[in-house]
């Protein structure tokens, strides 16, 4: 009331712009003020009676079930080792930090773990965007980092200290393309990709390439951003092209909503996806709309191989839920790290890196894992079908 000497529209315009600026500036900025200074390659993590290992996980936020499952897998592995007397006479100690499903916080968490907790290695992250944010920090401080399930190829290209124990998206895209062409016998596929996610756009691109090579066509390639909740406009456009199947290479929260809206618009084509679907929340949100959809994954907990059966029993006993793919990958990543520590000449980060790089034919839950020169694992993928809300094993596709 005191500033009324300004004409109203003018004053109003200024207020609006200032307000908008404030709100953007403040709400877009989460704590990320840790700097990289102060990190140097120390090995004190291995002194004393414990070996300290860091974990960056999305324990809350939009991909919370990924982080929680992975964390449980790692926890199970470490407890198993510690129960059996530890490793090299020392106990393993896990330091876990939550990144709330945000890349910038994953970077902060990695910095904290390496600088403050002086960990010998870092396990994480699940999502490729967040692993890509963490990787330069691990690389610069020469700390080995093992991502359990980031599938975008760029993750391990960030440096020679960055590893992963899962397959990569060029293969995963090929798997789904092969499955669509050979098992589902579909030719016309539409794509709905999440442009905010390195994982989603990468997988969509590799799928497109593989499908075209196999004689299929992409009838429409639509996109959304991860904060969207309404996909009907894209889906209405997709419906007009009458695809035989729709590839939705996103994460489970968005996919659940997309599946619902797909069926609401009367599209009956099956949905196809990748390991980003692997969460109990997927079916909770998507419900019946997801029936008869397919996605590729790291393993199936229905597999009867003794190694898998044993893992599933142990996990279910402790957490009263069946382990999903992320849990198995977390367990495998932890076990490969433990195995490498055992083989490492000394407990320096450098020797540990060399030991991880030499991993060959390690018998893990999700199959035999060998790391290639690009520090990626080469192994088969399974395709799961959603039937009555359960993920049922369909087929295994070899690399």
């Amino acid at each position, binding site marked *: 009331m005191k500033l009324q000497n300004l004409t109203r529209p003018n004053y*109003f315009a200024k207020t609006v712009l200032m307000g908008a600026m404030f709100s953007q500036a403040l709400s877009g900025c989460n704590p990320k003020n840790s700097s990289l200074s102060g990190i140097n390659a120390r090995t004190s993590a291995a002194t004393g009676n414990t070996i300290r290992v860091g974990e960056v996980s999305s324990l*809350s936020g939009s991909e919370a079930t990924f982080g929680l499952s992975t964390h449980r897998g790692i926890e199970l592995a470490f407890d198993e080792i510690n129960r059996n007397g530890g490793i090299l006479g020392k106990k393993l100690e896990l330091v876990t930090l939550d990144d709330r499903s945000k890349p910038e916080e994953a970077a902060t968490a990695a910095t904290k773990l390496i600088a403050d907790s002086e960990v010998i290695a870092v396990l994480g992250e699940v999502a490729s965007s967040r692993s890509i944010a963490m990787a330069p920090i691990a690389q610069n401080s020469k700390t080995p980092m093992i991502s359990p399930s980031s599938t975008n190829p760029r993750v391990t290209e960030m440096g020679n200290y960055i590893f992963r124990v899962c397959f990569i998206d060029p293969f995963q895209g090929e798997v789904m393309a092969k499955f669509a062409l050979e098992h589902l016998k579909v030719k016309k596929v539409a794509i709905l990709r999440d442009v905010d996610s390195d994982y989603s756009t990468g997988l969509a691109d590799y799928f497109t390439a593989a499908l075209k090579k196999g004689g299929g066509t992409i009838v429409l390639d639509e996109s959304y951003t991860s904060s969207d909740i309404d996909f009907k406009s894209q889906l209405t456009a997709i419906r007009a092209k009458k695809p035989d199947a729709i590839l939705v290479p996103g994460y489970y929260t968005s996919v659940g909503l997309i599946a619902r809206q797909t069926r609401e618009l009367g599209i009956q084509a099956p949905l196809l996806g990748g390991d980003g679907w692997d969460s109990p929340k997927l079916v909770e949100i998507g419900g019946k709309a997801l029936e008869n959809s397919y996605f590729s994954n790291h393993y199936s907990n229905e597999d009867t191989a003794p190694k898998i059966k044993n893992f599933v029993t142990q996990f279910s006993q402790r957490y009263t839920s069946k382990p999903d793919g992320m849990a198995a990958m977390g367990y495998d990543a932890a076990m490969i790290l433990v195995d490498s520590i055992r083989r490492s000449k000394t407990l320096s980060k450098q020797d540990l890196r060399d030991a991880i790089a030499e991993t060959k034919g390690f018998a893990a839950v999700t199959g035999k894992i060998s790391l290639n020169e690009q520090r990626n694992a080469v192994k088969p993928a399974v395709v799961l079908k959603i039937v009555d809300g359960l993920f049922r094993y369909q087929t295994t596709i070899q690399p």
Partner: protein
Amino acid sequence: MIELIQHLINGFSMGSIYALIALGYTMVFGILQLINFAHGDVYMVGAFTGFYAIHFFKLAEHPSWLSLALTLVVAMIGSGCLGWCIERLAYRPLRKSPRINVLITAVGVSLFLEFAGQLFFGADPKFFPQVLSFEGDWSFNELKINPLQVLIFVVSIFLMLALDWMIYRTRLGRAMRATSFNLEYASLMGIPTDQVISLTFVLGSTLAGAAGVLVGLTYPKIDPLMGVLPGLKAFVAAVLGGIGNVRGAVLGALILGLSEEFLVGYGAPTFRDALAFGLLIMILLFKPTGLLGLKRAEKV
């Protein structure tokens, strides 16, 4: 043709949600010349109140109109109370300070709600249980109409008409209009302006709470940051229609909903959010009073 009608229906249902939120912005601005940036977060709290009400009363086990009505009422009461508290605790003590102070406080309240929400509700998205389920959908050949979309539209229009009636046909509405015209003169004429202002916040927040439940019902994924973007867009809608003008807010919201829908459907899906803010800049440059806004001479 069918695609076009489908896009129209989608656009109207999205637009009516923006309208419910935009009304709160516009009413508060009309009275206090304050942009209540916390309004989008009141919408979020409304959705969560509905979510907890459903779990508390176990409404999802018996989906019916009654369950929906109960959820709506609880959520509206919850967010109404929140609106009252925000006004009483954050804005009223600053009534006499420069407006920029209040504006910054509004941003602060917004952040407070967002992060308190992450603390109390958890940052992971929650599934909003279905309190009303329809068998199948209404389809005319290719044209599929989700009854929920129609429901959103009908409920929104009903609430807006009720608000319009209240503002232009009741004594209370007259008091609100008088307060919005000039706070000091209105209080000299014996209008309890503080109460009128409180009531305005409560009404606006109630509508936002209803929008929260309706969105939860159609897009069953809710999280503590769900209010940020719809809040900002509803604000753009209010400015577009002429902020301070109730009918303008509805018009602006429908225009925004439809233009987003057509932009995404026929052109560039990733520009959905850019469109709203592009519109904001355009309207501020060329017609700062908005489409239905009146240019009032300022008395010094």
